[in-house]
């Protein structure tokens, strides 16, 4: 299978993400330049972390206008697998592929640290290698990761099991302290209703090798690879 990693001006986890899928998982992978109109036959598109266009406006607000986003949107609407990590998640929200919005972290500081996530829904292309309730240790690094949506929207997310990952403590409990950025309903990873687009604030590419302190992020990439191979 083939991964396409989108490069916006200001993306800074593009190399890390490519390294994870190409070198660690030994999959075919290529960068996709934001000004192009070519997905180069990718089976899965990843919008990586970073500060697209500097994020001087709202995170992701300008990146959504990049020429390539037209193709990404069409790809997603046809059921293609799209993963947005951190800034990529923010871009997916701005693109309207995922519902809701991000606010500043509750302590109004940038946060870079390992967090614990609980898999809430394992029947997705992104988590099927895991089991429900499984706790993953994966780092975050963001200023705007405080997820918000309105009450009606939240009900819908819950009804469709769209909140795929939640911030918990090490034991898997939903504590106030574990919800480091203040996200609504501890939302760390959110899927669209059709189940082919996932946005997540934690960085699985930073937790895919033992030398980096955790291999739990592998589960996300492994799930995608398994899913694509079986479809």
């Amino acid at each position, binding site marked *: 299978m083939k991964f396409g990693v989108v490069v916006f001006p200001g993306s*800074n986890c593009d190399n*890390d993400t490519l390294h994870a899928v190409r070198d660690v998982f030994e999959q075919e992978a290529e960068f996709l330049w934001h000004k192009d109109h070519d997905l180069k036959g990718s089976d899965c598109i990843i919008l990586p*972390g970073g*500060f697209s266009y*500097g994020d001087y406006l709202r995170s992701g607000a300008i990146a959504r206008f990049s020429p390539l986003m037209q193709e990404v949107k069409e790809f997603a609407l046809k059921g293609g697998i799209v993963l947005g990590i951190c800034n990529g998640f923010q871009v997916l929200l701005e693109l309207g592929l995922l519902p809701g919005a991000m606010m500043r972290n509750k302590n109004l500081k*940038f946060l870079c640290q390992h967090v614990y996530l609980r898999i809430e829904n394992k029947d997705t292309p992104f988590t099927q290698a895991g089991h429900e309730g499984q706790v993953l240790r994966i780092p975050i690094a963001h200023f705007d990761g405080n997820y918000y949506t309105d009450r009606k929207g939240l009900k819908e997310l819950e009804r469709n099991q769209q909140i795929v990952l939640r911030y918990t403590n090490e034991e898997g409990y939903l504590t106030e302290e574990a919800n480091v950025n203040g996200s609504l309903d501890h939302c760390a990873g959110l899927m669209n209703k059709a189940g082919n687009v996932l946005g997540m604030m934690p960085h699985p590419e930073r937790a895919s*090798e033992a030398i*980096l302190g955790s291999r739990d992020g592998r589960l996300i990439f492994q799930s995608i690879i398994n899913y694509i191979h079986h479809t």
Partner: protein
Amino acid sequence: MSEKTIIDEQTIKEHNLTLDEYALIQELIGREPNLTELGIFSLMWSEHCSYKSSKVHLKKLPVTGKNVIQGPGENAGIIDIGEGLVAVFKIESHNHPSFIEPYQGAATGVGGILRDIFTMGARPIAAMNSLRFGPLDIPKNRSIMDGVVSGIAGYGNSFGVPMVGGDVYFNDCYSLNPLVNAFCLGLAEKDKIFYARAEGFDNAVLYVGSKTGRDGIHGATMASAEFGEDLEEKRPNVQVGDPFKEKLLLEACLEVMDQGLVVGIQDMGAAGLTCSTTEMAANAGTGIEIDLDLVPQREEGMTPYEIMLSESQERMLIVAEEDKVERVQEVFAKWDLDAVRIGRVTEGGRLHVKWHGETVVEIPVDSVVNLCPAYNREYSPPSPPQPIIENTTISTPQNYKEVFLKLLTSPTIANKEWVFRQYDHMVQTNTAFLPGADASLLRIKDQKRALAITLDGNSLYTYLEPRSGGKIAVAEACRNLACVGATPIGVTNCLNFGNPEKPEIMWQFKEVVEGVAEACQTFDIPVTGGNVSFYNDTKGVSIHPTPVLGIVGMVDDIDKAVSPGFKEEGHIILLLGENKDELGASEYLRWVLREEKGRTPQIDLDYEKRVHQVCLDAIDQELLFSAHDISEGGLAVCAVECAFLSPTNMGCSLDLRSDLRPDVLLFGETQSRILVTISDKNLEAVLALAEKHKVTAAVLGTTGGDTFKISVNDLSIFEVPVLEAYNAWKQAIPEYFKVR
């Protein structure tokens, strides 16, 4: 000439030049300079750019070695690390701007050091900062610290370089003069290094990056004078950073370099267009001719003086062959950046600047860059000398537990997570050790090897005994590297001092440099560059002399690297080195007893080196589970930090044997000591290594349980639940920043 301003004594003074210096300028150019030319000289001859007061002493530093590719004098130092790669690194201060405008001051400090690295062809792979603040109970110091940390985070996080650590110290002397020293390490291929040289007559001179504005005019001159009551008026002198532009600039520069389109390149940092044009020409023995009307400008009506002196950020000067100009411009256009031809390389060694069709500058570049007078300024030790304090006059603690917990709340010792978690320290996925370890460890992808980096500099030591303090700064940095299993390969230093025109400050400087030089010689590591920051005085008060040593080390096998935390219960805790009767200059005296007095710990550099060798050999033979150096707070703080850094707040009990007073034994900061843990079966092997290198080694106790216990000669001194100590240590800094 368009600027007919008469240059009088007042103008000369405003440009921070002496009358003698002005006379020399007239002699060198054979006439009166105009105002723009005066501005150019004032910048390039400022202390910040010319090193005129420090040169004579900096010569004492060892700068050569078989792996040195580039020593001092370029944008950054370069060390050959083998397998076709080089390490490019440098530290630089941004103290003055960070006081005036903490966020932008610190942010642009990071931006400047990043450009120094990538202008040489290296991709920055890690950054660190050495920060010094005044006491946090003063609100102004909290706001400075908050601004500085956010500024560093704001710039580094967006650019995408991991801020992997550094050090933060607190002292009254930094209350009106915080220090922000930014370090960066980059990796480059050995055959793709670029220098600041304008070679090849008629080659094109290209201006790339952001447009020029009026920001930062006189930044370098500002950094070369004391601050008086006019602090607020200096705010417009601080530049504003744009990390997004810098990231684009990085990618575009590396791309044109990779395609072989660049002859020479220099970043426009301090002294902007002035510095880059004159230095590039002087380095190559050529001249440069530029037309200011072609310089991209973001403000209208800028004068030649303003354009030449602007310190707008995120700009570079590139020299390229004529037939490659178009390809350079294509790459920059891809990254949405300007790349404009503003002139050409000329013969004759002169800087020729045109504006509105007229010549506005016509001066020899050599006189600007190389002929600034150097001063051997007067120096003398302080009178009266620093107070010595005898241990016998210090009362012993009544309650050791209470004193110990208090010591853990000293912000210098306390947990710095409040700082580090605002920095993205994991981007680029090479960070093998999180901030808090003795040294940061960075893997090199596809290799077994790793790079380790550390910053160090205890200014209380250098204040009380500058020479010993200088030696200790190097020794401790090397010890930090030894603790993770790294051998030092190169040094960069940032020397922060007060006004060099004061003899006692100059004496501190000379003593510190000589101490640093001696230690670098003993450890056989070259100094490849750095920065001197004088005039760290505000309202007549000087900071403590503060050398910051950035040392890069190499780990041969990353899988053998060792971190400081205890690993398992039942391990033996072993001390490498000796406890001595030293309590002077300690954090315990400063924070608990409020005394900045006494003798700095004495150091035997040969012994220190042997201690490192024991640790390195033991790590190489995979005999150690953890290693942590003993520094601020002494043995007790070192041991409890190993507990805090264990996965489970694992306790330990130390059963010490000593004739020393317990307070000296627990909190004294004797050098050349490392605390390691080992399993029973390796004890003999480690002791044999210690014996081989003639280093004292003693079993102090074992790991395990959830309390931290210390006894001396079978008498219990204190015990405390690790969690209780941990909370005191962890909460100390956040407590100051709680919204009340």
